[in-house]
């Protein structure tokens, strides 16, 4: 699974035609923005990002997608999924010169227990699920988070450079781990709670 910016397809050869209708392009982008902004933040929270970093990565992703919008709109099969992948890359991007902007340096990052939403805002069940998702390996986590957002294995495979079967395997592994984490008694005894 690619996690570096350099693995993202570069759109240089697909720069938009200057004669293209700018109003329609902006309209399409705003539709995507209205529809997806909060969902992308949620996706990153599911992938283990702290709230502040999820918002920052989402912002950077939208800025980047807008900068490539001609190419994204015309070429990418699912801009919504592409947006999530870009946001995830932004979140994971390592420190160093390749990182364009640093909001909080790695050493200053908030500890996880302070950075996730707490009982005041989320139900116990949601907090358990988030904690369980964070225990998954990175690939299973992203495959599962994308499934939660309603993307099919084929769509996910297309964007992650995997086969659909590999995605299904990742999800199966993730679901098994989640079940074991969320229903430990049942996993052990093989019985459903009453």
């Amino acid at each position, binding site marked *: 699974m690619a996690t570096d910016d350099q693995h993202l397809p570069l759109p240089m050869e697909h720069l938009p035609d200057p004669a293209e209708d*700018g109003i329609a392009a902006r309209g399409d982008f705003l539709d995507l923005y209205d529809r997806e902004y*909060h969902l992308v933040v949620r996706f990153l929270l599911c992938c283990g990002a702290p*709230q502040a970093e999820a918002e*920052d990565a989402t912002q950077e992703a939208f800025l980047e997608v807008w900068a490539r919008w001609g190419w994204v709109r015309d070429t990418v099969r699912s801009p919504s999924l592409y947006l999530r992948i870009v946001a995830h890359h932004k979140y994971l991007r390592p420190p160093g010169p390749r990182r364009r902007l640093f909001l909080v340096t790695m050493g200053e990052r908030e500890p996880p227990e302070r950075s996730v939403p707490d009982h005041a*805002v989320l139900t116990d*069940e*949601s907090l358990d699920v988030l904690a369980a998702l964070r225990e998954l390996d990175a690939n299973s986590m992203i495959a599962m988070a994308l499934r939660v*957002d309603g993307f099919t294995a084929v769509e996910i495979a297309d964007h992650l450079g995997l086969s659909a079967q590999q995605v299904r395997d990742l999800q199966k592994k993730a*679901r098994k781990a989640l079940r074991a984490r969320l229903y430990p008694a*049942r996993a052990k005894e093989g019985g459903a709670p009453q």
Partner: protein
Amino acid sequence: MSTDDEARHDELSEEELDSVLARTAENLLGHVHQVTDPTVTLLAIMAGQDSLPAFGPWLDPEGGTQDPERDICLYRRLALARRRMDATLAGAVLPETVLDEWEARTVRHGEQYVTATAPLELLTDVLVDFGEVSRLCEQRHPIDCHRRLHRIAARLAGLIGMLLINLGLWDSAGSYFDTARRAAEETEDPALRAWVMVRQSMLPHYYGDPLDSLKLARAAGDLADKEVCAVSAMAPVAELRAVARLAQQGRGTGFPARDDVRAAAEEARSRGESVLATVKGSDPVFGYTRRQLLFHLGEALVELGCFRDGYAYLTKALKLYDRHEQLDRTLIQLDRAFCRVAGGEPEETLRQATRATRELPPEYRRNIVQRRVRQLESAVARLAAEGGTRPAPG
């Protein structure tokens, strides 16, 4: 347990897992909607509009100045604001110094409004602060702290409304003024509530029904009379501007007699100057100044067709403005040009207006200025068509 039972249990557990995931997703989304504001992201995209010239600018063909450092600055400001707020929220009590800092930042935003900062860039800054102060307002605080926070929030929301008016985004401006009024009510400060209302009265003045502007200005004046403040000087002028706009549209009592208009303007000036002499400080955004008083009275007189008196007020006002207060200076130049059209100097007028707008940096050439230029152009065209008669005010 038989193999069939195990399969049945696996299926149940799969279904349950799906429902748990769906409930979590919904719960998380509600939380995200509550705590994130996507506006700043959109503004950052709009501010970097030149990065995609093929699609054109977001707001205004002449409005985008592309500074490669701008986005970086924006992100740094975002980071600073969030870290400061995180530190604040980590403490049990909101420190006095934090409130002092937010108040000082609010005043600085006001200063930037009249000086150097382009509207879109300033809007981005103010929105960031407004978002952080809003989050602080959600916490429980002692009453004094609660009032101070809501005072800051009301001022920031009002300032955002003013910036949105300048950008021509009147719909959003209305929403922000409503928010500002609600925040001001929490402070129980009649002067602040009056300030929001009189600032809000400019929205229908420029983009809506002047009658609404008149009502808001009168209500603001009534509130301000409870406690003499800058709005006590500003409200009568806003009222006169609304009357002028109504008369211009041929509504209400029609065109008032010139002597009545002069008398009303003189009374507003006299009262305004004596009020401003007693008000502490001189703040053109959260207060009112003599130069604004003269400018606004001059504009009202011009709209009512009293060009000679209007020109005199405008000229006095222009002398009081600093060179860096560019937006108001340009609007005054345009109003003076309008008076010159009335005096039968259309060519000179056009030259003057063009020069005034050219002196304005591109990012300032927004809706309000452009509307005024268009009004001037049509007045000059009418004058030419009518062979030099006085133009209809407008």
